[in-house]
C-alpha cells in the first residue's frame, strides 16, 4: 500500500473529484490535482488558472496547441464556453478576495491542525513559490491531495511542520491513497480509510494524532 503507483494517484484524484460540487470554482495545483478533470463524470466545474483565465476547457489536440493559451502549469489548454480572460492582478484579486470555492493543492507536509507546507524544503534552494501562498490565503476551501508518505517513506502528515509553512490558513481536508481526513476546530479527523488497511497501520504511516470519526468509512 505504501508504494505510490499510478493507481494511487488516480485513486486520490477520483476521491477529490467526488468532493467537488457541480458549478464549483476550482483552482487545481500541479501534480495529482491535474488528473482530477478526468474523473468528474457529468459534473461541470469552473477551473480557474492563476495566469489569467476562468474556464479551462479540454486539452487541445497537438495540432491546435497555442502557447498563448496555457495553464499555470504551463501546459496548453483550451477555453470552455463562457470563459473569461484577465490580467494577473485581476486573477489574484479573484483568488485572494475569496471568490474561488476550492483550491486543490499538493503538499510536502501537513500538520495535525491542518497547517500546510507546500512550497519549500529546508536545506534546499528556495527559489520558487508561485501562487501557492495566494491560494492558501484566499480559497474558500483547501483540499490537499497528496501521497501519504514521501518517496523515502517519511511521514508527511505530522505533529508539527518541519518544512516552512505556506501561511496561517489551514487545510480543510486531506486526501491520500491511504485515507481521508477532515479538520474541525484544529482537530484532525479520520473519515475514510482504505479497504484492507487497519487504523494501526495508518497510525504507523501517520505521525500526526488523529481522532477516528464515528462514521468512519472503511471501504475507501
Amino acid at each position, binding site marked *: 500500500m505504501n508504494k505510490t503507483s499510478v493507481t494511487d494517484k488516480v485513486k486520490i484524484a477520483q476521491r477529490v473529484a467526488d468532493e467537488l460540487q457541480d458549478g464549483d470554482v476550482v483552482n487545481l495545483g500541479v501534480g495529482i490535482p491535474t488528473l482530477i478533470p478526468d474523473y468528474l463524470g457529468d459534473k461541470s466545474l469552473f477551473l480557474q*488558472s*492563476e*495566469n*489569467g*483565465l476562468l474556464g479551462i476547457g479540454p486539452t487541445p489536440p497537438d*495540432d*491546435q*496547441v*497555442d*502557447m*498563448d*493559451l*496555457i495553464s*499555470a502549469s*504551463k501546459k*496548453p489548454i483550451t*477555453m470552455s464556453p463562457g470563459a473569461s*480572460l*484577465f*490580467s*494577473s*492582478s485581476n*486573477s*489574484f*484579486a479573484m*483568488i*485572494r478576495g475569496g471568490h474561488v470555492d476550492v483550491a486543490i493543492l499538493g503538499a510536502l507536509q501537513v500538520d495535525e491542525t491542518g497547517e500546510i507546507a507546500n512550497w*519549500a524544503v529546508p536545506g534546499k*534552494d*528556495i*527559489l*520558487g*513559490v*508561485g*501562487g*501557492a*501562498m*495566494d491560494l492558501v*490565503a*484566499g480559497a474558500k476551501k483547501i483540499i490537499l491531495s497528496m501521497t501519504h508518505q514521501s518517496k523515502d517513506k517519511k511521514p508527511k502528515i505530522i505533529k508539527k511542520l518541519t518544512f*516552512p*509553512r*505556506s*501561511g*496561517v*490558513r489551514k487545510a480543510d481536508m486531506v486526501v491520500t491513497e491511504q485515507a481521508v481526513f477532515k479538520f474541525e476546530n484544529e482537530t484532525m479527523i479520520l473519515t475514510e480509510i482504505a479497504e484492507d488497511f487497519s487504523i494501526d497501520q495508518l497510525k504507523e504511516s501517520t505521525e500526526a494524532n488523529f481522532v477516528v470519526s464515528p462514521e468512519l468509512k472503511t471501504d475507501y
Partner: protein
Amino acid sequence: MKKLRTAEEAIKKIKTGDILLVGGFGLSGSPLTLIDALTEHDARELTVVSNNLGEEGRGLGRLLVSQQLKKAIGSYFTTNRDAVKAWAANDLEIELIPQGTLAESLRAGGAGIAAYFTRTGVGTELVEGKEMREFDGEPYVLEQAIKGEVSLVKALKADSLGNLYYHKTAMNFNPEVATAGDLVIAEVDEIVETGDIAPEDIGTPHIYVDYVVLNDRYIKEGGRYIEQNVGYR
C-alpha cells in the same frame, strides 16, 4: 507611426543598474525580441522583476547567459537551472515574492498606491521583518509597490497610437508591467490602424506606451514562437 522604434533603438534607453519590469509567464507573453536586443546591448548589473526568468537560454534566461543580471525579483525561478546555478554561485541575487503579491505590487506601482495590506504570505518566511497588522481580527502584511526605470511588455497587436491588444493568457503580467515603468517599450507582432482595436478590447491604453517595437525575430509555428534565421540582419 510616431512611437515605432527598432528593438536596438528602444533598448538603448536601458542603462547599467536599471530596474527592468518584464511581462510574461514563462515564455508566454514574453517580449522575446526586446530581450534578445538587450543581450546585444551593453547595460549590465540589471535587476529584472518578472514572474520567472524564462527557460535555460530562452527568453529572460538569455540575460543569465549574457551575464547582465545582478538580481531577479519574482515568484518562480526553480524551473530555470541556470538561475539556480547562478544563485548558488553568488552570481545572482534572488528575491522571492508570492505571485499574487508580485502582480498587485506592480499594479500598485503604476496606480499611485505606495503599499497595501494583504493576507498572502502571512506567517511565512517570505514576509519576515515586514509590518503586520490585524484587520477585522485577521492578520495582514504590508507589501510595497514595485516600480522600475524601464518596462518591457509583449502584446499581439498595437494600433498606430500605441494601444495594445493582448492575446489570451499571454496577457498575464503585461498590463500591470506597462503601468509601472518610467519608460515603457512594447513588442508586438502586428501594427494595425487606430480604431481597429475595439475600445473594450484595449488591454493597455496608448498613454502608457512610449515605444512600440515590431517582433521581427520570432514567428509563430505550431502555436509556439520560433526564432527565425537571423542571418539576413
